[in-house]
């Protein structure tokens, strides 16, 4: 017998790590860099952050809230780990005033957020670089060619996605270039030419979240190897991989396959050449060979089984459903049991309101992965559309249980795996949906609790108050019902004002996108 308590509040501590000061630290999620700096006892350093994303959103209280891949530089600034930041953006971001606009937008928003914690402002363009101050500490944004000579031993921090995202964007999903706009060898050479000196170097893959496509994950290995001064056959093998990618880009598939096979021979422990071969075979209809190669890739590196094995979700978020479907289909060709590809297909079917088809995909997804929270949530929605409320309740309840046991949605901003925290931004909303279903099926007591949880957890919307009032009326609690109606009516002006603001913002964004192409 064991009573298990779960869902405790966030812990911020990272895993204890043993670090050597001169090593290159390679990791998946970018917030891991903060824990490495902190555990090394780094203080008062210049950070050279080479990334297609700034990762500098304001974090109110980093002890209680979460350090994420989107804000980990904030605690580093607050705690005095970093005294100055250089955010090095991809070159094309700086080619015109229009291309720089998203960076301006970001920096304005960052400064606004940081102003809650201390002197923060955008200064403007100085010598071709964008300058700002956050918490009284200087921040400079520029491309690599404008990075000034820095005499110090800096914190060098590189995201692999920098090599693949040619332009910084704001509120849009970015484009990936078909081949890196800058290869690792050239980046390291340019850093050497710029005189960058660093004994604490962090390199991140950023595959999870879709920032670096999985097929380019090995570029992170190459960066780490080159920064670490490796000159062995491992690096030669990675160069062969790059030759293969270039051949593939030229449309020379057979040559690419030969080169990847050679890379697989030279890099016997790497999943990368096998994954590339699997994709090549899938594209040429040789599914059996593709499956074998994917199996070899996963055998070498289990992280190749992820929601981001393909770019299916990335294209879905970019509102490109056809490309998304192609990606998921290709994934299913090489991994017929891939739960994420099934989930992706289901999401696409649900968008088209093909409920039966969506349900079919979801059942296969759940069959392949019994604890995939997203699958249960979409299944519940699909079942509600078919008025199968009892089954929908079951699916929503299962998803809540999974969330409490630590499952997280696939599109959530990620945190370092060392943080075992409760991460389910939709949790209170799901309680509301579930409460409505309880109410529809006559489970009034559970409906009341569900609505109260949802409202108490932040979903204090008039519609939920009115629904709760209706249940109270049914239970003949007129006083409680009246109180809920009054609370709902009082919330109406605020809710309507917010809805209007959202509409204006969305319309403005759409209009802006149309006008700016």
């Amino acid at each position: 017998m064991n009573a298990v308590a779960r869902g405790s509040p966030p812990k911020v501590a990272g895993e204890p790590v043993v670090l050597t000061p001169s090593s290159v630290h390679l990791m998946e999620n970018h917030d891991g860099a903060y824990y490495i700096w902190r555990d090394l006892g780094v203080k008062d350093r210049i950070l050279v952050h080479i990334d297609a994303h700034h990762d500098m959103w304001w974090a109110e209280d980093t002890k209680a809230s979460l350090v994420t891949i989107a804000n980990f530089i904030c605690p580093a600034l607050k705690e005095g780990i970093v005294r100055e930041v250089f955010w090095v953006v991809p070159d094309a971001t700086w080619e015109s005033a229009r291309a720089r606009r998203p960076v301006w937008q970001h920096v304005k928003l960052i400064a606004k957020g940081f102003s809650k914690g201390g002197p923060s402002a955008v200064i403007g363009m100085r010598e071709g670089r964008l300058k700002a101050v956050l918490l009284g500490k200087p921040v400079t944004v520029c491309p690599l060619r404008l990075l000034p000579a820095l005499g110090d031993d800096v914190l060098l921090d590189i995201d692999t996605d920098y090599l693949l995202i040619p332009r910084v964007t704001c509120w849009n999903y970015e484009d990936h270039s078909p081949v890196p706009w800058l290869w690792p060898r050239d980046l390291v050479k340019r850093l050497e030419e710029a005189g960058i000196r660093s004994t604490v170097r962090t390199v991140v893959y950023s595959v999870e979240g879709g920032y670096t496509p999985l097929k380019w994950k090995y570029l992170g290995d190459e960066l780490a190897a080159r920064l670490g001064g490796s000159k062995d056959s491992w690096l030669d093998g990675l160069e062969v991989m790059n030759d293969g990618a270039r051949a593939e880009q030229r449309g020379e598939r057979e040559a690419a396959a030969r080169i990847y096979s050679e890379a697989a021979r030279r890099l016997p422990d790497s999943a990368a050449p096998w994954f590339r071969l699997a994709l090549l075979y899938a594209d040429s209809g040789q599914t059996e060979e593709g499956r074998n190669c994917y199996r070899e890739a996963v055998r070498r590196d289990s992280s190749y089984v992820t929601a981001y094995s393909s770019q299916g979700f990335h294209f879905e978020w970019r509102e490109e459903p056809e490309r998304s479907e192609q990606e998921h289909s290709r994934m299913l060709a090489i991994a017929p049991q891939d739960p994420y590809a099934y989930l992706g297909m289901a999401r696409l079917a649900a968008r088209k309101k093909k409920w039966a088809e969506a349900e079919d995909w979801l059942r296969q997804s759940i069959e392949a992965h019994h604890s995939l929270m997203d699958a249960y949530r979409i299944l519940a929605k699909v079942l509600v559309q078919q008025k199968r409320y009892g089954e929908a309740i079951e699916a929503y309840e299962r998803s809540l249980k999974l969330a409490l046991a630590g499952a997280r949605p696939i599109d959530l901003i990620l945190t370092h795996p060392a943080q075992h925290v409760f991460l389910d931004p939709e949790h209170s909303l799901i309680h509301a949906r579930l409460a409505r279903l309880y109410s529809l099926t006559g489970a009034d007591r559970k409906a009341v609790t569900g609505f109260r949880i949802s409202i108490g957890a932040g979903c204090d919307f008039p519609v939920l108050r009115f629904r709760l009032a209706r249940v109270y009326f049914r239970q003949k609690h007129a006083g409680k019902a009246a109180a809920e109606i009054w609370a709902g009516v009082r919330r109406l002006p605020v809710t309507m004002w917010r809805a209007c603001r959202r509409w204006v913002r969305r319309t403005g964004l759409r209009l802006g996108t149309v006008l700016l192409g």
Partner: protein
Amino acid sequence: MTSRIKISDDVLFQELQGEAVLFNLKSGVYFGLDTTGTRMWQLMSEHGALSDVVKAMMQEYDVTEERCAEDLVNLVEKLKEHDLVSVE
């Protein structure tokens, strides 16, 4: 085991397929309970006295008194930590 448990009025309990979630309206903290924890919670809200909870649990589960009491105390400690119950 002579203590009594008082469940805070700000705590909501929702059962989810044999397991449960507790939600503290004041702190906004969710707290998940597995099947055994859920049963313990139900018995605590029914009886209040921890000794009665242990007795009831021993009738339902094949467990020694020591083990049952230890698990119950562990759960109560965690619940107290999150202001979900108080001990009288």
